[in-house]
Each structure stands twice: as C-alpha cells, then as structure tokens.
C-alpha cells in the first residue's frame, strides 16, 4: 500500500503523462483542421521521459530541449494555454507566435527552447552551466536530445567541454531508435551510447524510458550528483515514438509490428496498471483525471482561438533588443 504522499506523487506522474498525451492528440487534430501549421513533432510514447526527468529539477534549474518539446514544456510547467496559443501563432503564445511548435521558450520556468537544429542545444546547455559555475550558483542544466544528435560533432564537443570543465549538466538522451527515418544501427558504428559518454569520463547509464518511476529514480540520482558538484552526467532513456516523425512522415522505415510491440509498453497504461495493482487507483480516479485534463485542454484551445495576431507593424521587433529594425 502506498503512503498518501507516494500515492499523490504517483497520481501526479500519471496525470502529467496523460495530460501531455491528450494535449498532443488535440494538436494532431488541430493540425488536420489547419489550425496548427509548420512542423509538428509529437512526443506520444515518450512522455515518461520528460515527466520523470523533470521531477528532481528545481525552479532555478534550466532546461534545454529539442523541436519535439511539447511534453518537456508542459512537464516543466509552461502553461498549456500559452503553448497552444504558440502553436496557433498567436501573440499570447509563449514565444509570441515567433517560434511555433519547435521553438517554445519561457523565461519564467527557465525553459531555453525548443532547438530545431539536431545537437544545437547541447553547447547552449554547456554555456548555461558554465555561467552557473562562474557565478557560483548551485544549479543544474538539463539538456534533452535524441539519439540522432549523438552523430553530430556538437554532441562530442559538448560532452568533452562539460566533462573537462566539470560543469553541472544533466545530459538526457532520449533514444527512440530512429533519427527521423534512420535506425540507430544504420547511423552509428557503436550503438552503445553510454559507452560514448563514458569515453568522456562522464558517468552514464541506460534507463527504461517507458517506466516513469525508473526515469524519475535515475534522474533524481543523477541530478543530485550533478548538483553536488559531481560534474556532468549522461542518461540514456530507451524509449519509442508511437507516432510518425512529423505530420509529413509516411513511416516507410519501420514496420507496424514493431510499433505495436512497443505500444504494449506504453508508459501510461503501464503506470495505471501498477497503481491499480497497488490499490492506489480506481477507474473513477482515472475518469476524474481525464475530465480535469479535458477541461484544461478545452481551455487551452479556447485561449488560443481567442488569441490575437501580432500586428504586422511589429514584424521587425525582437531582431535586436532595442526593437529597432536595423537597416
């Protein structure tokens, strides 16, 4: 039997994962309806990673994420309303409609984007951590990226710099086995990612990315070590994306059977089943959770619909800080 505190926490993990799932299902629907445009990369299947890894992070910590970052932004506490408005391109969006799905930013939660260049966020995370070290602040920078980034030079350069300078970076590699359509075996001569991290003397270990409790435990252990001056740590979260890479992906590179097999390990029903077994969750609880999430998402959509378009006369603001359109 779980303690009341443990149950509350487990329910939060479940609720957060479900919230991301439902939010993105709504996004896919709105994409088909033409309300959201551009690229839309869904996180569905990987929710346990963002939700679990976010748990040990504190308000003063920083997050750097990728173009598949809706889940990270939601789990970090960026409001669903402002994320949805961003998807709509409205000025009420978290990036004022300048970024869209791939570039969610939020100063209040120290969420440094939404980087759409694979590997491009890693040096930023190193720099954020360097600033903390130089200014003697005891903070962690969590950097999320996919296994595809491991092929980029910026991965190797950043791992080396972080290790060399003993910087407080928590590298969170989400290995979903495919860099867009290229399977890891087809792009890496060495597919053991922890071995690569270890070659930089960075402590590294693999984690079941479909088990939110395992993710949280590993992230808590690593984040604590990073916070206590243990230098950078690397976690390889083994996970899977259930949906296509983006809305334009016919998925010719993997077979349906593989996807179905992974869906049996869906982190949301998995946790729900565990909780039921532990006597901590009833069907009524689940219904209540769903109802609350439905309301939140409806509010987010209504907020985005009611949002306003930034006047075109503001087009060149935020190119430079003074807001002037330099000639």
């Amino acid at each position, binding site marked *: 039997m779980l303690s009341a505190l443990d149950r509350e926490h487990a329910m939060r993990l479940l609720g957060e994962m479900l919230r991301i799932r439902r939010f993105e299902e709504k996004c896919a629907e709105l994409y088909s309806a033409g309300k959201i445009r551009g690229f839309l990369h869904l996180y569905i299947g990987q929710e346990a990673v963002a939700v679990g890894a976010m748990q040990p992070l504190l308000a003063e910590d920083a997050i750097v994420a990728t173009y598949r970052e809706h889940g990270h932004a939601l789990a970090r506490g960026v409001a669903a309303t402002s994320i949805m408005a961003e998807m709509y391109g409205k000025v009420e969006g978290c*990036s*004022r409609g300048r970024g869209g799905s791939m570039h969610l930013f939020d100063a209040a939660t120290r969420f440094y984007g939404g980087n759409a260049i694979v590997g491009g966020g890693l*040096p930023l995370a190193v*720099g954020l951590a360097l600033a903390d070290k130089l200014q003697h602040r005891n903070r962690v920078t969590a950097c999320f990226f996919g296994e595809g980034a491991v092929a980029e*030079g*910026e991965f190797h350069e950043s791992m080396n*710099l972080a290790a060399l300078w003993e910087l407080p970076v928590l590298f969170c590699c989400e290995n979903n086995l495919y860099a867009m359509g290229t399977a890891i075996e087809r792009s890496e001569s060495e597919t053991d990612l922890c071995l690569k991290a270890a070659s930089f003397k960075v402590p590294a270990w693999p984690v079941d990315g479909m088990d939110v409790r395992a993710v949280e435990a590993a992230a808590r252990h690593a984040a604590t070590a990073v916070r206590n001056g243990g230098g950078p740590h690397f976690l390889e979260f083994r996970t899977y994306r259930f949906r296509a890479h983006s809305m334009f992906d016919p998925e010719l590179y993997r077979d349906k059977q593989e996807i179905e097999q992974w869906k049996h390990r869906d982190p949301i029903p998995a946790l729900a089943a565990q909780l039921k077994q532990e006597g901590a969750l009833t069907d009524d609880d689940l219904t209540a959770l769903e109802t609350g999430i439905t309301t939140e998402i409806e509010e987010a959509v209504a907020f985005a619909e009611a949002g306003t378009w930034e006047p075109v006369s503001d087009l060149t603001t935020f190119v*430079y800080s003074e807001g002037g359109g330099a000639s």
Partner: protein
Amino acid sequence: MTPQEVRAPTTTVTYREAIRAALRDALRRDERVFLMGEDVGRYGGCFAVSKGLLAEFGPERVRDTPLSESAFVGAGIGAALGGTRPIVEIMTVNFSLLALDQIVNNAATILHMSGGQFNIPLVIRMTTGAGRQLAAQHSHSLEGWYAHIPGIKVLTPATLEDARGMLWTAIEDPDPVLIFEHGSLYNIEGELAAEAGAVDISKAAVRRAGTDVSLITYGGTLGKTLQAAEVLASESISAEVVDLRTLRPLDAATLCDSVTRTHRAVVIDEGWRSGSISAEIAARIMETTFYNLDAPPARVCSAEVPMPYAKHLEEAALPQVAGIAAAARHLVTGHE
C-alpha cells in the same frame, strides 16, 4: 600655445595593444566578463592579443578551450543567456565556419524566436583578411557574409581608437556582436589618447574629406584607401574616404550623403565581388542617390580565387593602392 590648446595626453600603442587594453579594461570593470577561445591563456593568444591576461585574471576568466569552435561559441551563447558577458575569440574567420550553426541558428535567432524573452549579450572576436601569405584557409574576408544575418552586429575596427573602443561598446550591447580584426592591422602603431574609451558604433566615419569621389571601405583596406587618396590628391583629384566601421547595421545615410556630395563612388572591399557587402553598398547608393551620380559606382574587390600562397599572386588577388587610385581616376577623368 595657449592653455586651451594643450592636447590630451596620448600614448604610443599598437592595434594589438589597444585591443588588449580594451580586454583588460572589460575584465577589470565587470566581473561577469570572461574571455575564452583557443590559446587565449597560456599561449597568450594566437596573435598575442591576450598576452599577460591569464596571469592577471586567472584561468576561470581567461579560459583556454579545446579546438571545438561550435561548442565553445555555443557555450558563449549559453553563458550569455546565463547572465555572464562572454568574449569569445575565434582564431580566424575561416575557423568560425565550424561555429556557423551556433552563430546563425542560435545567437542571431533566439531573441526573436523567444518573442523577446532571451537576449544574448555575447561578443565574438576573430581575425580576418589576407596579406600574410597564409593561403586559402586562413586568409579570407567573410565578414560580409555575417553582415547578411539579421540579429547580429558586425564591427570592423580599422583604427586604434576603434580597436580600443569598439570592444567596450560591444560588451555593453545586449545582443551578439562580432568584431573582425584584420590580421595586417595588429602591428600598426600610433598615438592613442590615454583616456580613449567606448566609441559609438552606429555611424560610419569620414576619414578624409574630399569633393570629387567617395572611396568607401572598412577594416584592412582603409590604410590602402587613404594612400590611394593621397596619390589622387597629387593629381588634383579630391577623394573623400568613408570608413564604414560597422557592416551591420549599415550606416547607409553617411555613405550616401558623401556620394550625394561627390557624385561618384568607389567601393573597396577585400571580400569577393559576387554577392558581397560591396554589392550591397553599391545597391544602397543606387537606391538612394542614383540621380546625383555622375558615373556608375565602381568596385575594387579581391579576385575571385581562393587566396594563393605565393606573394606575387596574393598581392595580385587583393585590392591595392594603384588599383584603387585607377578606379577613382577613371570615374573622375574617364582615364585610368
């Protein structure tokens, strides 16, 4: 001499020393400032600019980096986001191409992509230009490329005052600023006011006044252009020399005012002609003051070849005094 005419005290310094003084000044004045790059510390800087700073400020603030341009430039961006004021040194503009992703996709975009939430107060210094027989991977002038990118500022100090002053102005800027130091300038020596400090970076400067033709240039070719103006003066051609100083944002008003007065323009640029900053300047002149022109704008640029090693070939590839004077002479007299 009346007391009012007493000059402010000056010191004799090189361009290199002027930049070093600016770095030292920045490191002293603001604890958030730190310098990082390849061999800036123990080696003293590839071009000896940061010599002595490691001993004065220590390895945390004068930070040697591995040969990882993308990571340490990106780390500069991240550190700027984290509340520090990094000065990143890249050995040469050619090596900066290894960090192009960070400069163009992150430094230049994050303020805009974040809807104004995150500015990046970062300074990146690098050497540019040819003239030292360093061949095709150490000699190019790619600052014009960077001037293409909205979101960054591009400075090209050509004088001791600007070498001393632009860095401080850049450090105070809330946005990313790239400073291009032409390699042939480090050893130039002259008098600099002992009190020299921050300079305005928003305006081009008329370095020599004239009435017959405007010679528009920046950085490493300012010296040659002033020499050409001297040659022209001996032939009774009065050339005005405009130093752009900043390639982005471009002070089109000053250069177009000059051309409006002289009715003729020669643009001198060590970059290649095709798709270049010289093309941009010529276009601005045409857009702004076409009806005041007595002749089409002319350009003196580098030959469109990768920079050769052999001295005579390198000299032939670069803008030279005789060629600049000839282009101006042709505009004014119709003869070269």
